[in-house]
């Protein structure tokens, strides 16, 4: 089962390495990883999509909490969060295929950000299953390159992660 975990970390040298080493050392899976600074001084936020059963997930949460540079582990598995991902998709498109690409882009409210006579490059955002869906529809037309950011997630409601 896939789980999305957000981790608030001190933006110190080596933190990303420590988290990665923790996952690889204990055989936990990383499906995707995204990290960037937050609005708070010296803090970054990492979003990790992992997979495993409940016992593994509990171990992952506890082991992350144990790391010195980690302030908080937010487990978004129970659906109380909004998840988004961005994808840059380069698709081949010639003759009739060109119109089909534009139709798909329109349906998914994505954007064309680059165009050549033989290709389109598309920017799409949405929850991960929306990104999966647009890729599935574009696949028969010929995907040249796909760059995904991996999920980021934020809780619903008025409160921040810190209350």
């Amino acid at each position, binding site marked *: 089962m896939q789980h999305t975990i957000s981790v608030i*970390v001190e933006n110190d040298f*080596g933190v990303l390495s420590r988290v990665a*080493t923790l996952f690889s*050392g204990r055989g936990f899976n990383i499906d995707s990883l995204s990290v960037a600074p937050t609005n708070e001084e010296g803090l970054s936020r990492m979003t990790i999509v992992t997979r495993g059963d409940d016992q593994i997930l509990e*171990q992952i949460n*506890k*082991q992350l909490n144990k*790391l*010195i540079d*980690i302030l908080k582990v937010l487990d978004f598995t129970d659906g109380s969060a909004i998840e988004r991902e961005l994808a840059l998709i380069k698709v081949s498109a010639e003759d009739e295929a060109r119109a089909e690409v534009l139709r798909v882009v329109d349906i998914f409210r994505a954007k064309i950000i680059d165009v050549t006579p033989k290709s389109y490059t598309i920017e799409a955002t949405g929850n991960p299953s929306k990104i999966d869906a647009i890729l599935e529809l574009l696949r028969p037309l010929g995907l040249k390159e796909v760059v995904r950011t991996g999920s980021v997630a934020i809780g619903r409601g008025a409160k921040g992660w810190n209350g």
Partner: protein
Amino acid sequence: MKMNGARMMLECLKKEGVDTIFGYPGGTVINLYDELFNFKEIHHILPRHEQAGTHAADGYARVTGKVGVAIATSGPGATNTVTAIATAYMDSIPMVIITGQVPTPLIGNDAFQEVDIIGITRPCTKHSFLIRNVKDIALTMKKAFYIARSGRPGPVLVDFPKDVQMSLGEFHYPESIDIRGYKPNLSGHPRQVEKAIAMILDSRRPVMYVGGGAVLSDAAEPLTRLARMLSVPVTTTLMALGSFPETDNLSLGMLGMHGSYYANMAMSNSDLIIAIGARFDDRVTGKLATFAPHAKIIHIDVDPTSIKKNVRVDLPIVGDVKDVLLKMISQTEKNAEKLPEFISNLTPWQADIDGWKVKHPLDYKQSSTVIKPQFVIQKLRELSDADAIISTDVGQHQMWTAQFFKFTTPRTLLTSGGLGTMGFGLPAAMGAQAAFPDRQVITVCGDGGVQMNIQEMATLVQNRLPVKIVILNNNFLGMVRQWQELFFDKRYSSTCMELPIDYIKLADAYGAKGFLASKPDEVESVIRAGFKEEGPVIMEFKIAREEKVLPMVPAGASLNEMVLNA
């Protein structure tokens, strides 16, 4: 006060109450050593290998409860400490290891004697720091010591570049620190404690399973008091031997792969396991699927990751072991009127345990012609001081010491349990002797392990550390040989070390004394002669070559499926 970074580092150590350090100089720590030359408040001991120096700091920490400190230069000096750091990490020993590093502009440039020691030790340190600026030294060291000794203790590495050591700055040691991401929970929740006592008073076949956390937390006194109040039998892991006196009637001795029959049977037939500062390691549980099938489990530990990692737990209590035990004593006193009935209900359980003790006590076949290793251990116990400190290396001799010495006080057995590092025994004893110059320190080693850090004979003699080195010599890599005998048809592949070494000559080469016993009737006189010597001593005992450690729970078997005779 203005001073250079190297001097600042030493002032930090002084502020943290460090009086003894073990280190080996080199190019990137030469500035540190120059400041150390006149720094009277710190006693420095030079080993002959950085691994041994770091093991010595570890041994020092294990006997005193203080943070052990070791220094190594960059590159090969730092990599030589890795095994010892991993050893401390697996046993949760508080240490700070300071490694020199090339000047900051050269980091990442494949400079001379440069190594990414932080990267290399990331999986086996509790935390690590790279000091990039002289302004950061004091805060880093304060954090390093705090992290090393608090919560679940562990080794912290501080990488110290040469240019930072040479920079000048103002020294100001912070009064207090706050690490946002690290707030260990030391206080056991009172409601959980209430539930625990209720569960205990409801049980009929309880057993206390005590691990190294009880020693690290200095909880031997409340542990002993609580066990006796409740009249509950106590078994300890290798790491906790001595936290409950083995001479007490309630003691079941060590459990696990080479634990006693009665300890393992008690765990397997219990209806309530009270786990105290222990982590249900594979050496203890045997096959997890069939582990303690009828038992509810109360798990007391300062580290939440240890709880429910291997076994399902009915009542977790996160907190410092000593704190939780003291709360449990209070709660028991509140329920004092229930105790007499509870204790009398334990009679059939105690009878079962007594029966197991009679059926298969820890024993060995005595001999008048060949020295049995177990006999040497028993003689050592009989003839050593009451407050003697014993370190072991790793292997059969380690298990025989655990089985036959009978420990009664905590912090008297130093042994590498988690990592099982050969070569640990002699340097760990060195560290213990440096901590307690007036106590008797004995290291029990096999002929394999003792040679891994034999160069430390020089350190012992030079620093007048009168460690008594007992070598149980069977000319084999004994524990591996045992496995080869039991599971590989006696195909002794690369485990026979036939070369006879004249240990008396070896000791003499270093300026120490050596003794040899080849027959059982020589054992006592050799031990007495060795103990009488004022300086470090080697006492070699030529023991039975193919003796086995029994009982044994083979890999993959259940805890109650012990091999008792083979």
